[in-house]
């Protein structure tokens, strides 16, 4: 498994997988729906899958001495690593923003502020994307467009829901909004829920992807 992950990193990473990590800095943009940052993470997954298809990566991997179902697992572990990196970076950038800017400039009017609740929301978005995209992708790895469109539409719908909640409910506009130092327990609970949802959905996605890929016919060798 370790060798497969190493092979993924050496041969299958589209540059955007790393470039889009820098988009965590968008939390410094005022009046911006920061959840969109996590969509770029999903977009980089799409580019990596496109690159894998153009390189015949899955067919090549299938000829290696590995269990067939380990191929989706390795790909997903790499993606989960990148997703954890963007979650950490957004959290870190949000903390820096809260520390260096005056409190009133830290509050985001377009969506949730760059605090740990944003990280929790991002985790939910990425977990939902993983659950929708990967099991479909590993059923037919040459068809990336449809799973991505379904995943992306779902992510944007969720982003819309988070923005509506921010604008309409006191929980999101007051308790979960603003600096991490205010209503810390509630914010920590929101982050924990987000991470639990992400972990659960990603584990389900891994299992479904492995199960689907076992039955997938691979061509292009």
């Amino acid at each position: 498994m370790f060798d497969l992950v190493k092979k993924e990193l050496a041969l299958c990473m589209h540059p955007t997988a790393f470039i889009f990590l820098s988009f965590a800095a968008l939390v410094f943009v005022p009046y911006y729906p920061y959840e969109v940052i996590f969509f770029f993470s999903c977009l980089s997954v799409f580019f990596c899958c496109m690159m894998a298809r153009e390189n015949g990566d899955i067919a090549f991997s299938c000829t290696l001495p590995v269990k067939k179902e380990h191929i989706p697992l390795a790909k997903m572990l790499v993606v989960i690593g990148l997703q954890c990196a963007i979650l950490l970076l957004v959290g870190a950038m949000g903390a820096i923003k809260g520390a260096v800017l005056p409190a009133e400039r830290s509050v985001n009017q377009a969506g949730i502020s760059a605090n740990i609740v944003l990280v929790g929301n991002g985790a939910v978005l990425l977990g939902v994307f993983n659950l929708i995209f990967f099991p479909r992708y590993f059923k037919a790895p040459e068809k990336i467009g449809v799973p991505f469109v379904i995943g992306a539409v779902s992510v944007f719908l969720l982003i819309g829901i988070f923005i509506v909640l921010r604008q309409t409910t006191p929980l999101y506009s007051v308790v979960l909004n603003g600096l991490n130092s205010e209503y810390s327990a509630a914010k920590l609970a929101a982050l924990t829920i987000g991470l639990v949802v992400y972990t659960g959905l990603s584990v389900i996605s891994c299992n479904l992807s492995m199960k689907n890929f076992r039955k997938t016919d691979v061509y292009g060798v």
Partner: protein
Amino acid sequence: MNALEVRNLTKTYPDFTLDKVSFCVPRGHIVGLIGRNGAGKSTTIKGILRLITAEGTVSVFGKDISQDEMAVKQMIGYVGGGFRYYPMNTLITIRKAYAPFYPTWDQSKYEKFLAQFGLSEKKKVKELSEGMKVKFALALALSHGAKLLIMDEPTSGLDPLSREEFCDIILQLVREEGVSVLFSTHITSDLMRIADDIIYISQGSIHAACPLEELLGKYRLVHFPSLAEATAANAIGVKSVKDGYEGLLLCDMQNSGDTVITDATIDNIMVHLEKAAEEGRHV
């Protein structure tokens, strides 16, 4: 113990069925897998490597691939029609990602092959000619001590000199290292040079699996001046040629009249047996 044993390999598509394909590759033999386009050669190889979900059993040196996929694949070196993967990557990047999968990887052997094949690891895959791509695939497959080489039309797209060189390398491997080879190809002249056995697959079923000499010795190519004479001789897969008709006769079949008899090549046998199959004649 055979190097490869395939039993009742079956895969059903809406418009094609690989039907209970069974054969074996004896240890140290070069076995040619022949058949026309769409006959099921590549499907058979994909089924062996578990790239597609197929019924049946595949064992390599006595180990069932479904039971111990990783160990079995360690023993297999796969060479497709050239190295079609990662065109933008250099050979060294690919080798560094590939080698760790094989505990038996022999770097000095790999470097020896690179030198023998005139390959530079600094080159990108897209910069290699078709022949060089095949050689790179071969260098990777052979440097981890593969005991069974499975090759799917590796010589397609190669010029005659490169094919000759390729066949020499395979013969050398079999003689010096005891490697066993399953070799699917359309270019049957390559098989005439190096194959020990032939598996002839047609419309998803095995039509012949025997030593090459036995297959060649079974038929004679007969040239008839007229269709009537060909029909009277009960020739197999009779077809019109430039100045008459041609068909196969079994060696023990009698023929008479103004006929010219020559040894049949693999191509002749394939062409006429396919013609007979199209006509619905049981051969």
